[in-house]
């Protein structure tokens, strides 16, 4: 029946004749079945599908519209980042990890840097301002990540307005990132020992403006969605997973908080000084997609609260260092944008190039060779927008990581897809996957 299409033909397997169909007329497919008695429809959703959050492949066995069995196929974005890092210095590793889960780059960087700092034994030498900056960027990042989750989740169920306003607010967040780090995405801003650069002039005002903007516009999501009958009909009781299921499958993040359990590493095992901030851990008690949506919405408000506290603290910290004082680790360049819009501080260049041979050698060695990290292993988990994220970092005492493995929450959470989807309608699969918010860059790395 489909002999002309090289991608779609019939073949015999141990389980009977298998037909691969790629979008012809259904009648011709049924005609091609002949008198085969058994009919088992397996639908491949993805890896290129607009509603699967990137290159996720869902393998669904259908009976009518009901999903009887569901499995995930992943690995379509496997990038070999972990292996690549083994051939780069510790500082260069940040540039790689930031591209893993591309919606929460600051979390990847911080998880990696916290582990490296624990290996270096400098955890308590990180300057206060660097910690505040990390918290500020991470919480802004949580807002932008949740916005994309809600936006794309809305788009996938057909609510395009949610997508357009979601990206509108995300742009405001990205403008802040660009102002502070120089890049919209993939920042590589958090470095072992601190952060790359101090806040630029005028950044605090922009942060205040941003808070005002968000206070005005965040309620729109609640107005659009919270009581919207269509939205609720699509999300209520879809993708149900209770606390026992979450624990068994190692699920963390908004999914576990939607079961009513306030599991949050920022509270239970604080890092970067989170214990000194005032915020709540929102929960919901329905264990379904709607609950996860409400948890995310509420978390954005809590993040905004933390951003505000960070801004207050940064106001009093003008001129404080943002990199560890140990010159054997801290990046030597005192970065400052020159008149040409790029480059380092001229004073620093004058010092290393003209005045001190030792400073030049030190700069050269630290940049080309990098610092050595004492042998051992460390794992410092942090609470990313999707759950527990941690880097298992192994050092052999050299200038390069011996092994870096990321425990990415998207990867662990996606294991819950079959249990959430089996027995539901095909349309609910989309909602359930969107409520897990897997980012394939993090899943596949």
């Amino acid at each position, binding site marked *: 029946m489909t002999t002309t299409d*090289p*991608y779609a033909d019939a073949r015999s397997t141990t389980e009977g004749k298998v037909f691969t169909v*790629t*979008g012809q007329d259904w009648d011709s497919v049924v005609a091609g079945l002949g008198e085969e008695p058994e009919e088992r429809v397996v639908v491949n959703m993805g*890896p*290129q*599908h*607009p509603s699967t959050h*990137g*290159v996720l492949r869902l393998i669904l066995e259908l009976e009518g519209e009901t999903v009887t069995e569901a499995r995930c196929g992943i*690995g*379509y*974005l*496997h*990038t*070999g*980042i972990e*292996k*690549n890092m083994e051939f780069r210095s510790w500082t260069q590793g940040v*540039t*790689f990890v930031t*591209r893993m889960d*591309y*919606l929460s780059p600051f979390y990847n960087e911080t998880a990696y840097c916290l582990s490296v700092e624990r290996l270096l034994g400098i955890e308590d030498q990180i300057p206060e301002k660097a910690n505040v900056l990390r918290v500020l960027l991470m919480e802004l990042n949580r807002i932008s990540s949740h916005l*994309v989750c809600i936006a*794309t989740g809305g788009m996938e169920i057909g609510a395009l307005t949610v*997508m*357009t306003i979601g*990206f*509108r607010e*995300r*742009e405001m967040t990205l403008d802040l990132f660009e102002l502070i780090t120089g890049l*919209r*995405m*993939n920042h590589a801003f958090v470095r072992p020992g601190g952060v790359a650069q101090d806040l630029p002039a005028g950044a605090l005002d922009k942060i205040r403006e941003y808070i005002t903007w968000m206070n005005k516009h965040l309620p729109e999501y609640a107005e659009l969605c919270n009581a919207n009958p269509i939205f609720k009909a699509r999300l209520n009781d879809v993708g149900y997973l209770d606390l026992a299921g979450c624990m068994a499958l190692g699920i963390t993040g908004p999914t576990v908080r939607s079961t009513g359990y306030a599991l949050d590493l920022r509270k239970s095992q604080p890092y970067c000084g989170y214990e000194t901030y005032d915020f709540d851990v929102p929960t919901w008690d329905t264990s379904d997609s709607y609950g996860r949506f409400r948890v995310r919405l509420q978390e954005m408000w809590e993040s905004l609260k933390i951003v505000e506290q960070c801004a207050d603290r940064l106001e009093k910290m003008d001129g404080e260092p943002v990199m560890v004082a140990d010159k054997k680790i801290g990046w030597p360049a005192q970065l400052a944008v020159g008149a040409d819009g790029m480059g380092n501080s001229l004073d620093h260049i004058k010092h290393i190039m003209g005045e001190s041979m030792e400073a030049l050698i030190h700069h050269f060695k630290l940049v080309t060779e990098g610092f050595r990290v004492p042998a051992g292993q460390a794992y410092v988990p942090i609470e990313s927008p999707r759950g527990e994220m941690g880097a298992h970092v192994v050092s052999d005492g050299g200038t390069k990581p011996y092994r870096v493995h990321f425990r990415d929450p998207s990867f662990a959470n996606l294991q819950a897809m079959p249990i959430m989807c089996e027995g539901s309608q095909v349309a609910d699969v989309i909602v359930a996957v969107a409520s897990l918010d897997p980012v*394939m*860059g993090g899943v*596949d790395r």
Partner: protein
Amino acid sequence: MGLEEQLPAGVLLGTVEGLLGYMRKASLWPATFGLACCAIEMMTTGAPRYDAARFGMEVFRASPRQADLMIVAGRVSQKMAPVLRQIYDQMANPKWVLAMGVCASSGGMFNNYAVVQGVDHVVPVDMYLPGCPPRPEMLLDAFLKIHDQIQHSKLGAHKLALQNEQEAAALTAAPTIEMKGLLR
């Protein structure tokens, strides 16, 4: 392989080329081929602030059969490459490919076992867009440039002549390693 391809070379074909190019460039429908970080920037381009609708390109088609332009947005892994080729094969002619970001263009920083070192190993690429990820403005600029390319694309006999010319030039071209001069 429509009627326009059968026209003899000359003024008539040139006129048809101009007309067709104008039509095609004004309603270029991209296929969604979001892979990684660049896909987010591609979505941002379609969102209100950058608004790809100004160039008639807001209709991202989920079905490759309805799309004219494949924007390969992100790193292509070895596992994804056959899928990418299948999507490309399913698109109807005429079709264009835009490699968005350095990973799709050349493998970028991921020079390793898992990533295809440039999507041009798998499908012919019409436009390379550098950046990691490129800003939405850069993507819009690439849109305009590919529009320009489509406006001036050849048909039928003209296309054949151009292809022959390009192939002859490619056969005598020096490999990169043997080139002299500045790195550009």
